[in-house]
């Protein structure tokens, strides 16, 4: 950001415990300096979700991926070890791997033909004798690994900052919800090929808000709710809660929306599936105990892991990764996570059901995208300095309950507030947050699910 004049207005967030209001400055969604700060502070200094281990199941498998605008190679070496390398030749910077995925022992740069093993070691430099003390030189010219890489339950995270805390510490309570996903089936879970790759004309934070927002469900998804009703399932807002898990991670616990393939039956799944679901549930109870099985099977969870991972553990399981490319544009990548071993009829039902909701061709997600693209366009109306007090979005819903210590509901905006508080801290603006009145003692309400 250097010596350029600052373009970020202060404050970005105003929380007022006397008025019970929480307001977010709309520059957060469109300001280029904010975007640069997100790249430089958030994406550079926190753990980021890279991908799932099962995307590269075999030795020598690789995928390329971009995080924080940096091209990466996500691969498994010949010995089976998982790596994340900068996808850039140490010689002069050429993108080394120009395929999206595949299997290889060696990555060769086409420019001057330097060749690297898939564990990062330099394998060959043509005419290496031209370099002074070529052995030492060669040792310094391996592929550049991302400084940190840790895996939790198959979810691979990386950090560009070597000094981030251990992954499990960073994930906190979010880690257990990932464990609950892995526990859904005795054989564990795997990602499937067939990745939904799409881009939206909206700021990445609008996608986070949308996922943590139960309030929009009925009006935005009116047509989808109608379809669920017709197929014999009532949708309610009862007993649905929002949790701030700390470090900006958020969780919605939903029990009123739809069934869960192989875990919670509903009429549209058909009678055969009812029998299979009952058998699976009996197995889970045996394996996990009644209480844990209840939390794993009967509740839908939408988990947000700050800043770029959303896990939709709903009818089926979708992993969604957010990659901001501009203040008003976000690349989204979504994978389906399924039990490794599954009855083919259940699998077919799962795929159909999941895809009917999620993804840019589903019956519901397009309306979500429409909503936050419409926010991105609509907030231009208040941009500028003529009436700066109007240039805020309101996220106060449920603050009165928060003061009383009542557990936040999913149809309130408490999960969003948790996200924004973390965000304003993470972008490194000391005057980004303005607080009036007395904050209630605790924002964090743990859940006893073990």
């Amino acid at each position: 950001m250097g010596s350029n004049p600052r373009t970020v207005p202060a404050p970005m967030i105003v929380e007022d415990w006397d008025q019970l209001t929480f307001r977010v400055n709309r520059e957060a969604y469109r300001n280029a300096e904010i975007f640069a700060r997100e790249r430089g502070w958030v994406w550079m200094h926190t753990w980021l979700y890279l991908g799932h281990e099962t995307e590269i199941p075999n030795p020598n498998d690789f995928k390329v991926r971009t995080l924080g605008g940096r091209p990466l190679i996500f691969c498994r070496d010949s010995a089976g070890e998982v790596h994340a390398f900068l996808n850039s030749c140490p010689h002069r910077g050429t993108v080394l791997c120009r395929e999206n995925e595949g299997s290889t022992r060696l990555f060769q740069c086409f420019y001057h033909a330097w060749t690297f093993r898939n564990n990062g070691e330099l394998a060959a430099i043509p005419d290496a004798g031209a370099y002074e003390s070529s052995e030492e030189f060669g040792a310094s010219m391996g592929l550049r690994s991302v400084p940190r890489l840790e895996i939790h339950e198959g979810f691979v995270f990386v950090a560009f900052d070597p000094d981030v805390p251990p992954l499990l510490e960073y994930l906190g309570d979010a880690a257990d919800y990932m464990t609950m996903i892995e526990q859904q089936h005795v054989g564990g879970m795997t990602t499937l090929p067939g990745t939904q790759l799409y881009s939206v004309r909206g700021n990445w934070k609008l996608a986070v808000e949308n996922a943590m927002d139960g309030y929009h469900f009925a009006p935005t998804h009116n047509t989808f709710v109608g379809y669920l009703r017709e197929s014999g399932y009532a949708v309610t807002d009862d007993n649905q809660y929002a949790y701030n898990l700390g470090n900006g991670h958020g969780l919605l616990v939903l029990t009123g929306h739809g069934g869960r393939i192989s875990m919670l039956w509903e009429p549209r799944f058909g009678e055969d599936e009812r029998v299979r679901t009952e058998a699976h549930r009996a197995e889970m109870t045996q394996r996990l105990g009644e209480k844990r099985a209840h939390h794993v099977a009967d509740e839908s969870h939408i988990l947000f892991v700050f800043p770029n991972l959303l896990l939709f553990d709903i009818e089926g399981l979708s992993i969604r990764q957010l990659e901001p490319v501009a203040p008003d544009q976000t690349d989204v990548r979504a994978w389906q996570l399924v039990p490794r071993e599954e009855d083919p009829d259940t699998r077919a039902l799962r795929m159909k059901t999941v895809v009917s909701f999620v993804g840019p061709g589903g019956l519901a997600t397009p309306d979500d995208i429409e909503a936050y693209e419409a926010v991105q366009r609509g907030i231009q109306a208040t941009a500028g300095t003529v009436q700066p007090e109007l240039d805020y979005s309101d996220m106060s819903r449920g603050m009165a309950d928060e003061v009383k210590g009542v557990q936040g509901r999913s149809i309130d905006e408490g999960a969003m507030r948790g996200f924004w508080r973390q965000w304003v801290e993470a972008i490194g603006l000391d005057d980004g947050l303005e607080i009036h009145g007395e904050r209630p003692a605790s924002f964090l309400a743990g859940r006893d699910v073990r």
Partner: protein
Amino acid sequence: MTMISNSASVRCAGHTVTRQEVEDFLYTEADILDHWDYDGWLALFEPGARYEIPTTDHRPGWSPHETGSFVDDDWDLLRARVKRLKSRKAHAENPHSRTHRLVSNVRLSEGDTEDAFRVSASFVVHRARDGHFDAYVGWYDHLLVPTEDGLRFRLRRSVLGHESLAAGARLSFIL
């Protein structure tokens, strides 16, 4: 996508179907969709038919029952999709996109069953919405059945030729 033959006609269920008949069918469908006549569109399907759009990283032979996809509609979902699109509450398509479709490179070949045949064609669908203009290109890979009332879809499948969906190019309309 596997290559299919380029015959001027195909025998199916005791009928001889010509390429011209198939082209007329596809052109009519394009016209129906461009005019947002979704009841008319649903009438082009046999009961029990399917509508599929694989993801952009799709490889030949992938089944939507075993991989992720953009659209994996059985008959119930296809009818739900049409019902939704006809509603004013289908926010992603209200107001409607304007579309303009070009269909070409139509080829016919035998199906795996006696009563259906395969059609492959190229499409370009232009779509205008929200001040943006997007082009979608790809291949149709359909299964058609001859009936008393003309041709009908058993499987309608659109395979995108893109590497990913561009910003704003969500598939909220029929591709």
